[in-house]
């Protein structure tokens, strides 16, 4: 997994609550047996005017000019600003794969659905939970300052504005230390767990007596 320390990038505001994983990556693209290549179909139904299917040449499709991700001022965005309950619905990890493939490395919202939140960390995406009022403030700042970039610093656990922004942004965020550590180091969790193989075996040996039908 790619390490995450700090990024400075354009932030795209997606002003909509309860964005579900079906919207992030529609089901027809789940048929792929690969982990990459989902980026062009991120938010497919909102991003394009026609109906997308796997195998289409996305560069030839008509884009929806009203959809925020298509606006020139947000091109190259790596930070996604969202509303509450982002990533609800299906557990598909294709949703963070699509976001990551598109280039998103940070998502800021007042709340995330649990499974999606978890899946982000496995894919080098940092989901940040902030108070609703702070998120409101960020929406206003991002919409008001075209071309401005935000810096997300995981080591310092801070979100900072660059000089081009009218108001100064300096927001701290909380994060569980294990997840922070894995992101900073780009760690393979399976490898970490296998270091505890003896503990797992000891647990199994104990359980064999208590629940023998499972062994």
């Amino acid at each position, binding site marked *: 997994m790619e390490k995450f320390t700090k990024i400075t990038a354009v932030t795209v505001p997606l002003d909509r609550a309860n964005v579900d994983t079906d919207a992030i990556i529609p089901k027809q693209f789940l048929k792929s*047996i690969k982990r990459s290549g989902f980026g062009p179909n991120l938010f497919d139904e909102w991003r394009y005017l026609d109906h997308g299917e796997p195998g289409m040449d996305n560069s030839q499709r008509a884009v929806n000019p009203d959809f925020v991700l298509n606006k020139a001022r947000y091109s190259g965005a790596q930070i996604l600003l969202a509303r509450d309950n982002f990533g609800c619905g299906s557990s598909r990890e294709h949703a963070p794969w699509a976001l990551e493939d598109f280039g998103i490395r940070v998502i800021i919202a007042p709340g995330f659905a649990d*499974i999606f939140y978890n899946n982000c960390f*496995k894919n080098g995406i940092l989901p940040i939970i902030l108070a609703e009022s702070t998120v409101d403030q960020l929406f206003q700042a991002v919409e008001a300052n075209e071309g401005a970039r935000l810096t997300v610093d995981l080591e310092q656990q801070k979100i900072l504005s660059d000089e081009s922004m009218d108001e100064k942004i300096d927001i701290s965020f909380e994060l569980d230390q294990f997840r922070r550590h894995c992101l900073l180091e780009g760690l393979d969790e399976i490898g970490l*767990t296998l270091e505890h193989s003896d*503990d797992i075996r000891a*647990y199994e040996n104990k359980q064999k007596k208590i629940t023998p039908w499972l062994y």
Partner: protein
Amino acid sequence: MTAKTLYDKLWDSHVVRQNNDGTSLLYIDRQLIHEVTSPQAFEGLRMSGRQPWKLSANLATPDHNVPTTDRDKGIADPISKLQVDTLDDNCNAFGITEFKMDDIRQGIVHVVSPEQGATLPGMTLVCGDSHTSTHGAFGTLAFGIGTSEVEHVLATQCLIQKKSKNMLVQLNGQLNPDVTAKDVILAIIGKIGTAGGTGYAIEFAGEAIRSFSMEGRMTLSNMAIEAGARAGMIAVDNTTIEYVKGRPYSPKGEQWQQAVDFWSDFYSDSDAHFDKTVTLDASDIQPQVTWGTSPEMTMSIDDTIPDPAQEADSVKQEGIKAALEYMGLTAGKAINEVPVDVVFIGSCTNSRIEDIRAAAIVAKGKKVADSIKQALVVPGSGLIKQQAEEEGLDKILTQAGFEWREPGCSMCLAMNADRLEPQERCASTSNRNFEGRQGQGGRTHLVSPAMAAAAAIAGHFTRIDKL
């Protein structure tokens, strides 16, 4: 000893190792596998040269992409076919038990596993699918995971998890006629919202919940995820144990009594602490119909479509407006006047034998309205299909004008050929009414099987007793 909730007991008995950062290494007794969320996990195993930790803990079946007609002709869509073939190849290569497409035991994972006794009380169970919460009906800690975690469980039989908080949903009193588990869970989601359970494991309790069969309990737990909770559980009782008894994977002989004794402890102690408690009165719940694009947008069959102007919160107001526009509905209209184009009875929420019986009772001797373009009944597994046929339910339904299909996810998410056309309106027994869920531009209204059958007969939503 301190009093524990059901969730505490399940959690504590599966902790392999407590990490000092607040996470735990949790042992997973069973993993269910389907074709959509597993290929990349198997690929990961291969790339790192790892082997499954405990083969017998895994059980696989294809469900999302399988056709529900002409099974003998195979899968027409080459991309769907590749995904199902990949599952077959991976299970063959690693030695994982799989009920393949031509096996009578094939079906929707969440239907198949309980039916086989592979879901047992007191265990931890995961699947790369959010509706894994279904299995919580057995006093099981069951939750959906992503593909990286599927790989993690394959390789280590464990997951690194942080414990959720405890929420109790208490349903007091008796249910009204025609109110099913589906109506109850929709009403609960309507009350607490789709993020109401985020960060919690829910336990459903109370007299009305106890009175549900295992099928009803599974319907309830199935949609815990729609309330934001990864897990939704119900304590073990006689109904649970009677259901599990004699199934292929359940314990036999001497182990049976040992298991029953062990399982009987999986309930919340009377003075256990819950971080949040929500209480509902069963008698307040009427048959439900969702009107919007989120499961929390639900109402009673006697109500009218909500008016966004009545909503004070501006984000919510926009949400209602967008939902009404997408759904093609006008504020103030009675939901029982809204005509339906398609009816879908199926999915891991409502495709079990009781659901099909409920639909058949309503449909018996009647005809699907001429205005209905399609009315599908898709059993959850090959064995349910067989049982329904033995009971003559297929005849009742087909004589009424329903189509009787092969088992799978089907129009629940339209990854196979069964899908809505843009703007078609569907009365569906599935669990998600998100935009485009049942086909691009399709409009989904979530209802119980009896309500779906009634809508098929009437051509519009209706109270069952008004048919």
